[in-house]
């Protein structure tokens, strides 16, 4: 673990000197997490891909301001969360044109489930879609802590650091987000339990 952290700080040092090869290694390390955060927040794979790219580009542009001693992951996730919030606000201001939703890239189906049974596949797709819609219906200040804590596995402290707020606020928002999600998903609880 220590070696990994030492290696990461070395990579960050090199990135601060403009080394893009070192930054590639950081993208490889944190790419999945960043992409998943974007996907859970936005609910669209293609958009999540774009957001992950944008987050890394912004991170590289601002990496000189990164202070040593703090957590690079937390810093990177905060950048990602900001990009997600910007994108969501931009969408609200200017909804995406219809063609982007008509195109198959934004509407591509979920990847095939390895479950052999058709019924299980159907249910898995339904569950994912239900949860995606329920999360998308949450307000932003509830969605972010829920995604970070429940889906990304962050601790309260990490969520608080990413959101730049205190732990008490995180707990409160997380509780409200969970209750709101429960309210939205309660009619389909049996379906979720079946999964």
């Amino acid at each position, binding site marked *: 673990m220590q070696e990994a952290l030492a290696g990461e700080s070395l990579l960050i040092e090199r990135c601060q000197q403009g080394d*893009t090869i070192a*930054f*590639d290694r950081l*993208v490889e390390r944190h*790419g*999945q997490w960043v*992409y*998943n955060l974007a*996907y859970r927040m936005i*609910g*669209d*794979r293609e*958009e*999540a*891909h774009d957001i*992950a*790219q944008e987050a*890394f580009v912004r991170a590289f*542009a601002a990496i000189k301001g990164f202070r040593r001693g703090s957590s690079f992951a937390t810093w990177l996730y905060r950048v990602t969360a900001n990009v997600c919030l910007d994108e*969501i606000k931009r*969408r609200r201001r200017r*909804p*995406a044109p*219809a*063609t982007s*939703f*008509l*195109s*198959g*890239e934004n*509407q*591509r*189906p979920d990847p*095939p489930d390895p479950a*052999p*049974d*058709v*019924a299980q*596949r*159907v249910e898995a*797709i*339904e*569950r*994912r879609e239900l*949860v995606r*819609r329920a999360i998308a219906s949450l307000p932003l200040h509830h969605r972010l802590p829920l995604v970070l804590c429940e*889906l990304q*596995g962050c601790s309260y402290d990490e969520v608080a650091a990413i959101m730049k707020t205190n732990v008490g606020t995180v707990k409160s928002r*997380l*509780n409200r987000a*969970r*209750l709101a*999600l*429960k309210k939205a*998903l*309660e009619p389909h*609880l049996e379906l*979720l*339990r079946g*999964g």
Partner: protein
Amino acid sequence: MRCDHVIELFTRYRDGDLDAPTRQQVEAHLAACARCPGEFASLDAICTYLRELRPEPAPATLVRDVRARLAARPERPRAVLLRWALPAAAAAALVVVAFGVLSPILSRPREAARKAPERGMALRIDLSHVKPQDLDAARRKAAEAKAQMLRAARPGQPPSAAKASQPGVGIPGVYPAPAAKERITRELLPPPGKQRGIGPVPAPTGAKKAKEEAPPSAPTTEPPADRLASRPAPAASPAKPPAPPPHAAAAPLPPSPSRESPRGRAQAGAPTTPKAEEPGRKVAPLAVPGPEVEGRSRAAREAPALKAVPQAEADRMRDLAYGGRGGYEGASGRRQSQVIVSAQATPMQRAGGSLTLQVTTDQEVPDARVALRPARPGGRETPVWQGKLNRSLSNSLDIPVGPSAAMPGGSPQELIVSGSPLNRQAFYLFSPSTAAGEPGPLMGTADRLKPKHAPGTVSGTWVSILQTMASKRNLYILAPAGFPIGQRVRVAPDLSDESLAHALKRIGYEFRPQEGAMTIEPSTPAAAPPRPTRPLPPGRARRWRG
């Protein structure tokens, strides 16, 4: 401890974040309460499901894409310029402005400021470049200017002096207030004869008269319609009879609901108290349609009529705003998607002849139709179900199949599900499982052709999904039961209707785009015409028995 307080603590209780006494209180409440344990179990089930969700694999091209975007960024000097030069320029401008504003105040001593008019501080500045021989003349000029300033500041001065001392006199484009009103009245108002619905207006002779004659909204050429309409018809002018505008000579207004309003009655001739008329002002009757009499503003009259948004449309717009799979008017103009799904006949061999079909849609299909058709060429369709498919949720269609629809044992059939999805996207279909619990032969690996993969091949035990690129719609085609597994299909890069037809032809199907419908049928041999079906009453879901 009350229920709402316990519910507030659910998250922390579940995460083990409560201290021991509070935790015991919560547990005691959960043991005693009838409602809260269920609530907590629901919350726990949802959180458990969320935690168990598998992470999405990141795209394999992420590193490469990020690198490409980094390489495409603008040059760093520009970034440095934007970061430092612009704030520096802004700060410099601020300093200059602050200096310009504050320097006269700071540099002028209090005593000098008090005696400035007498000592002619302005003269001192002006005289810095004056030659000695012109000094006396310049001083006289400055004294006159100072005297004018003093007169202007003194109340009760004669009008001529006041006019002479008005700041801005002699400067083109700057007018004292009365003159400005006169000029505005004369120049900005249209000529009297050209005013819509208004008779000739005498030319203003002075500032006061101009003020009287100018309507409150003088710069606008079109006074509010209701005010004009409420004025009585003018008397004929002795000098020049008013020429009514063309629209004023039109036929009388048709009766409109607006005349029932007090204002409308006033226009219709009901006794009202006319407003005081200026002498010489002649107002022709203004023919305006009914709604304008109600006093709608011009902007409101020109604005398009707003329509109430149906709830379904509002939902779709909301989804669109959230980036969800919302509905919209498709670019292709078509609003149908027909999916052919093949199912084995085995489920229909069960006792009772019941067939269960699961349909998962990502949209609502209000007029979905399900028909059975033998997979053999020339088989006739038999409609078995018609109704509404709900959006997203699993639609489990329990279709009773009569003897006429049942096929000889084991022979495959096709289920044809068609309809008009609201958002004009395709919907997923899954065939029923076989009696042995195995998925149908076509429910193997779902594959999808991405644009960047086309042209390409699809193979496998498969459900092929063809994407039409030209019309931006998806067409999910589940191959028929008799389809040879492993068949390779080449898909054109730009899959228009023609290329889709070509692709389908290669797998033995014919694609016929029609108005409001799209049909995919076996191409060989020629399909028999479908049996006419009984018309359904509109808007009613109904089951069909074969």
